C-alpha cells in the first residue's frame, strides 16, 4: 500500500463504532424531546416558558447569540489564518468550516423558536422594514449560511473525487453520491484555477460578513434604550467574544474527533499549541472589552446603570457573572500561559470551560438587563420579577444544541474531516500516486 493509499485510508470517513451509534442515538432522543416540547409551546403559547412581560427574552435569545458567536469560527480560523499565511491551519480548517455551518444554521432555527407567531414568518419578507435590526438579521443570516456552505463545499471537491475513487469497488452507492457531489472534479488545471479563485473570494468575503453578523447581533441589543445594552462597545465586544466562543468550540470538537478517529499523527501537539496561542490572544482581547463594558462605568454610571452593575457583580446574577468571567475567561488565560496547559488534554478542558462560559455569558448579557427597566416593575405577579428558564425552554434549547452536534457528527461521518488532497500535497505524496496511476 502506497503512502497515498494509507493516507486516504486514515482520513476517509468511517462507519460509526458502538460509541458513535450510542452518541447519535442520544442526540436524536434529545432532539425528539425538544421537538415535543416545541410543539407543546406552539399549541399552548409561550406561556410554557418562564418569559413574561418584563423578562421578555430568555435563553432562546441568549442561545441564538451563542450560536451566532460560535459560527464565527469559520471566519476566525479559515479566513484569517489563510490571509495571514498560517499553514498550520490545514488539518483544522475542515472541522472549523463544519462547526461554522452547523452553528449558523442552528442560529437561524433558534431565533424562530422565540417567535410568538412562527406561522407569520413570511411577514418578515412581505412586510419587511429595512430600519429594523431584525430585518438586518434576516438578510445577514441567510447570507452567512450560503457563504459558510460554500466555504465548506468548494475546498471539499477534490476530496469528494478522491472518495469516489476510493469507494468505487467497496461501496458503489456511496461512490456514486461522492461522484455527483464532486461536480466531475478531475483536478485539471482549469478546474484548480477556478476553485482556487472561488475559495479566495469566499475566504475574503467571509471576514466582513462574519464581522457584520456579529455586529448586527450586538445591534439587536444596542439599538434599544435598555441599561446594559445601550452601549457603543457592543459591536466590538460581541465580535471579540465570538473569536473566543468559536475557538473554544473548535478546540473541543477537534480534540474529540482526533481521539475518536485516531488522528494523532495529523493533529499534533504542535497544532494544539498554535490553537492555544490563538485562543490566548483572543481571550486577552475579550478581557479588554469586558473591562470597557463592566469596569469603566464604575466611574460615571448613572443610578440605573449602577443598580444593574451591582446586581451583576454582587446580586442575584453574581454567581453566573463570575462563573462566566472566571471559568470562561480568566482561568483559561492562566492555563494557556503555561506550556503544559497548551497540551491536548488540558486544552480540551480549557475548550469546554470556554464554551460553557461563553454560553452563560450570553445569558448574563440578555436577562439581567430586561429585569432593570427605567420604571419600576409593579402590578405583575411576583414571579415576573425574576427569570430562570422553564423545563420547556431547557428541553428545546438542549435540542438545538443536540441538533448542532448531530449536524457536526453527520458531517464527520460522511466527509473527510481533514482535507486529504491538501495534506497529500503538503506531504508531497500526491504526484507519486498520479504517476503510478498513469
Amino acid at each position, binding site marked *: 500500500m502506497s503512502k497515498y493509499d494509507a493516507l486516504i485510508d486514515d482520513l476517509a470517513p468511517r462507519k460509526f463504532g458502538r460509541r458513535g451509534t450510542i452518541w447519535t442515538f442520544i442526540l436524536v432522543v434529545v432532539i425528539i424531546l425538544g421537538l415535543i416540547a416545541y410543539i407543546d409551546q406552539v399549541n*399552548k*403559547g*409561550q*406561556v410554557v*416558558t418562564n*418569559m*413574561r*412581560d*418584563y423578562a*421578555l*427574552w430568555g435563553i432562546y435569545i441568549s442561545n441564538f447569540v451563542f450560536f451566532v458567536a460560535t459560527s464565527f469560527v469559520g471566519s476566525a480560523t479559515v479566513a484569517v489564518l489563510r490571509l495571514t499565511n498560517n499553514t498550520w491551519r490545514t488539518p483544522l480548517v475542515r472541522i472549523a468550516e463544519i462547526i461554522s455551518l452547523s452553528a449558523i444554521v442552528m442560529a437561524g432555527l433558534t431565533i424562530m423558536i*422565540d*417567535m*410568538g*407567531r412562527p406561522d*407569520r*414568518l413570511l*411577514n*418578515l419578507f*412581505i*412586510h*419587511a*422594514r429595512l*430600519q*429594523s*435590526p*431584525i*430585518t438586518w438579521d*434576516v438578510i445577514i443570516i441567510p447570507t452567512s449560511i450560503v457563504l459558510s456552505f460554500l466555504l465548506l463545499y468548494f475546498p471539499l471537491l477534490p476530496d469528494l473525487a478522491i472518495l469516489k475513487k476510493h469507494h468505487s469497488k467497496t461501496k458503489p452507492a456511496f461512490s456514486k453520491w461522492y461522484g455527483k457531489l464532486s461536480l466531475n472534479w478531475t483536478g485539471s488545471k482549469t478546474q484548480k484555477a477556478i476553485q482556487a479563485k472561488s475559495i479566495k473570494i469566499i475566504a475574503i468575503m467571509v471576514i466582513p460578513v462574519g464581522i457584520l453578523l456579529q455586529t448586527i447581533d450586538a445591534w*439587536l441589543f444596542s*439599538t*434599544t*434604550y*435598555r441599561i446594559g445594552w445601550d452601549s457603543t462597545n457592543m459591536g466590538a465586544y460581541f465580535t471579540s467574544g465570538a473569536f473566543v466562543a468559536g475557538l473554544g468550540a473548535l478546540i473541543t470538537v477537534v480534540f474529540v474527533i482526533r481521539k475518536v478517529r485516531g488522528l494523532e499523527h495529523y493533529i499534533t501537539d504542535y497544532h494544539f499549541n498554535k490553537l492555544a496561542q490563538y485562543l490566548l490572544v483572543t481571550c486577552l482581547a475579550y478581557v479588554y472589552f469586558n473591562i470597557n463594558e463592566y469596569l469603566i462605568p464604575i466611574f460615571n454610571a448613572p443610578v440605573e446603570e449602577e443598580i444593574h452593575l451591582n446586581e451583576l457583580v454582587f446580586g442575584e446574577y453574581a454567581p453566573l457573572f463570575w462563573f462566566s468571567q472566571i471559568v470562561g475567561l480568566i482561568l483559561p488565560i492562566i492555563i494557556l500561559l503555561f506550556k503544559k496547559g497548551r497540551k491536548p488534554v488540558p486544552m480540551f478542558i480549557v475548550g469546554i470551560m470556554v464554551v460553557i462560559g461563553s454560553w452563560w455569558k450570553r445569558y448574563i448579557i440578555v436577562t439581567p438587563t*430586561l429585569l432593570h*427597566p*427605567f*420604571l*419600576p*416593575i*409593579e*402590578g*405583575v*405577579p*411576583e414571579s*415576573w420579577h425574576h427569570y430562570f428558564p422553564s423545563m420547556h425552554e431547557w428541553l428545546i434549547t438542549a435540542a438545538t444544541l443536540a441538533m448542532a452536534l448531530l449536524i457536526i457528527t453527520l458531517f464527520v461521518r460522511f466527509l473527510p474531516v481533514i482535507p486529504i488532497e491538501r495534506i497529500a500535497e503538503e506531504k508531497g505524496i500526491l504526484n507519486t500516486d498520479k504517476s503510478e496511476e498513469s
Partner: protein
Amino acid sequence: MGDNTKKERRKFLDKGLKLGIAAAIGGLGISKITSKLNAKTNHNSTDKMELMTVDGTLIEVDSSEVLEVQHAEHDDEKYNVREGIPNRKFVMVIDLAKCKNALKCVSACNKTHYITGENAWLKVHKMQESKDTAPYWMPRTCMHCDQPACVTVCPVDATFKRRDGLVLIDNERCIGCRFCMAACPYSIRVFNWEEPKQGEMSEITMHMGGETPSPDYAGMPSRKGTVDKCDFCPHSIKNNELPHCVTACPNGVFYFGDKYEDTVTNGEETLRLSKLLTDKAGYRLLEELGTAPSVYYLPPVDRLVDFEKGMENYNEFQSMEKPEEQ
C-alpha cells in the same frame, strides 16, 4: 464576418421598426373607425336632458350621452386606520397632584379593553425618586411617542405611528418577536403569552357595533403570541368621546385633547394646553431619551390628599382584578 452580422442586425432592426410603426398606425385607424360606428348608433335617440354644470349654467345634453358617474373617492378625507383622523394631534396631560391611586382608571381600562392577562395596559406606579423626596402616585399609559422606539425596531410594520399621534398595533400582522417590548423605555407593552381568555364578549361587542375588526377598535380580540398595549381609545375618539381612563377618574387626573386646538379636557374643565403646561411646569417622562411622548405630566405639588391614603388600594403584585372562582 463581424461586418456581416452587424449589417444583418441593422436590417432586422429596420424591418422591425417599420413593422411596428405600420401596426401602430393600423391600430389607430381601426379604433377611429369603430368609435365612429359606435357614435352613429347613438345618434338615433332624440331625448334631451337639461343639466346644470358645476359653475351653475344650464346645458342640454342628449340623454343617450348621459352616463352615471361613480362618485370620486376622497381618499385624503376618508378615515384610514393607519393614517388616523386628519389634522388632529392627540395629547394627554396627567396631573400628578390630583392622583390618589383610586385605580378607577385601571379597572375601566381593563374592562373596556377586555384585558385578560396579568399585566394591565394602564397602571399606577408608586414613585419616589429618592429617600429624601416625596412619594407620589403616577398613572402610566402608553406615551404615544412622536419618535417611538417600538415603531423603529418593528421588522414588519405591525406597530405604527399615525398622523394624529396614536401608536397602534396590527395584531393580525405582528410576528411576536417582542423587539418592540425590549425597545420601549417605558415598559408599557404586554404580550399574550397564551390564548387570551376573552370569551365571546369581545366578539359580541365587535359585531354589535357593526365594526370590522381593526387595530383601533377596542373590541379587537387579543391574539395569542402578539403584543398589546394602551391605544388611547381611538374607538371613543372617533365618536368624539374621551378615553375611558379620563371619564372613569373620579379626581380629574387625566386631561385629553388636541395639541393643534391647544385644548385639553378632563370632562369637567377644558383648559388651554400651552398655558396649563407653562403654569404648572408640565414635563414628559424620560425626556432626555428623545422619544418625544404625547403624554405630559404635571408635577405632584399642592396636593389635597395625603399620599398614604392611596396605600389602601396599592397592590405591588397585581394590576388585574382576579375574576372570582366559580
